[in-house]
Every structure is written in C-alpha cells, then in structure tokens.
C-alpha cells in the first residue's frame, strides 16, 4: 500500500463562542479566541489517500482529481470565509482545528473514488495541527462524538 499526500492552503476567520456559556465562561474557556470580532489563520491542509498503484498508470489516484476535489470541497467553501457564519457544515459547532478536520473528512471522503482516505491533517499554525482518521476497530468508539 502507498500513501499519497496533497496539500492545499486556505485563509479564514473564526472565533470560539458557546451560546450556552455565560460571557465570563466563554472568556475563561476560550481566552482570546473568544474575541467576538474574530481572528484568522492561514490553514494548511494535508490530505492523505492510501491504496495500491494501478499497474496501468503507476498511480494510486490522479493527483489532479484530488487537487480539484480539495479546491471544490474545501478551498471554495472555506478560503477567505468566516467559518462561524459562512460554512453551513460547521453550523452549531465551535470551529476548532479538531471540528474543521472532521468536517473536511466528511466532505471529501465520499468524493474519493480511487484509494481510500487515510488521514486529514489540518494545521492552524505551524505549531498546532489536528489529525482526523477513521476509527479502525470498527467498534464505533465515539472519539469524534459531537461531529455528527
């Protein structure tokens, strides 16, 4: 099995706020991420697809196809957007690195027809990233509980 990784960057705004928390609790839990005016990041997304190369092409999948999927599903939805207001898939969720990575998995996994989506890695900054993978034991341990 070979793993193939493609990278895409997007820039977006967000802030963290739970309407069920008091103003004070929001500030305590989310710190400066709670600033209601929002702030932004240059996100770097690495998507890894695993599979055996097709003997006819030598490729696990056509990277151009993967590039187009990432542009359509992630770039067009999230680049230069405010994640709290403009991305319906994140509605009702705090747009943390963990939640955005899980949403991206749900968006692109069904579009990948060659190979299998292996990992979504989302960098919020060079020093912070979330990894999303499929639960392998199949027992449905709810590690991503709350992400639909």
């Amino acid at each position, binding site marked *: 099995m070979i793993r193939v990784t493609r990278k895409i960057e997007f820039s977006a705004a967000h802030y963290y706020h739970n309407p069920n928390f008091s103003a004070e609790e929001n500030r305590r839990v989310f710190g400066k991420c709670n600033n209601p005016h929002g702030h932004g990041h240059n996100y770097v997304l690495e998507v890894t697809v695993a599979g055996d190369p097709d003997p006819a092409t030598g490729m696990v999948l056509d990277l151009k196809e993967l590039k187009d999927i990432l542009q359509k599903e992630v770039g067009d939805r999230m680049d230069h957007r405010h994640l709290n207001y403009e991305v319906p898939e994140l509605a009702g969720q705090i747009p943390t690195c963990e939640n955005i990575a899980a949403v991206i998995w749900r968006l692109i996994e069904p579009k990948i027809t060659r190979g299998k989506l292996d990992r979504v890695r989302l960098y919020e900054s060079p020093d912070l990233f*979330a990894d999303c*993978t*499929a639960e392998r034991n199949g027992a449905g341990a709810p590690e991503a509980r709350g992400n639909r």
Partner: protein
Amino acid sequence: MSQPLKLSLTRRYRFSASHRLHRDNLSEQENLRLYGKCSNAHGHGHNYLLEVTIAGPVDPATGMIANLGELDPFVEREVIEPFDYKFLNEEVPEFARDVPTTENLCREIYRRLKAFPSARVARVRIEETSKNSFEYDGDSSGAAYAAP
C-alpha cells in the same frame, strides 16, 4: 450512520539543552567508538523541537480534545521549565542513570506528560536536529528502560 472518526491534536514546543552521550561503565575508547563526537567530555547542545499529541473524544461544548490553556502550562511545567537551558546529564535526575539520547528523552518526556489529566497523551515526537527525529507512543517495552 456516518463512519466513526478518530481525532488527535498536536502541539509543537521548543527547548534548548546540552547533553553528553557517555556511559561510565565503558572505557573512553569504547565511548568514543559508540557515541563518536557526542561523547565529547564538555557536552554539546541542540534546539529540540517537541511535538505532543493528545487524542480522545472532542467535547461538543468546546470543540476541543483538551484546552490548550491547560496543555501549554502543563508541558511548560513538566518539560520546558526543567529542560530548557539545562545540561540534561546533570540537571535532570533521570539522566544521572540513563544516557540522554533522544530515544530516552522521548520516553522520559512521555513519562512526565502521561499524567495530563484532560486527555490521553498519544505520542511524543522530538526533532533533535532538522535531520533526526524520534517518536514514542508509550508501548509496553518502555516500562523499564534503565541502562543495563
């Protein structure tokens, strides 16, 4: 039902420290053969890059596996403060016994961080230089690692 997902979050930290790779029970010549210039009696140093990965369920109320407001001070207290700008052989008690290779550093840092109360520490990865990196995920063989 949608596929269950597994999330992790990785945070990068930095510390600078000196060390010397040397075993008292070996001759100078054997130390030199085994550790090369790393056994230089006066020690030498590195800018270590530490990656700490936490894993577990994402809390729907916060969108987080654990709050960085808790992880950062914990890592600072357990690792950065006792290791940064220190001579590991003499100022970190565990390395009076164990050679401070980056393998042993990974295990010692994992041992210190696994008590993090808010999430499971799934992995510790250290870049000793931009060319060398080491990972430890707490496998059972790490239970005893005293130098023979």
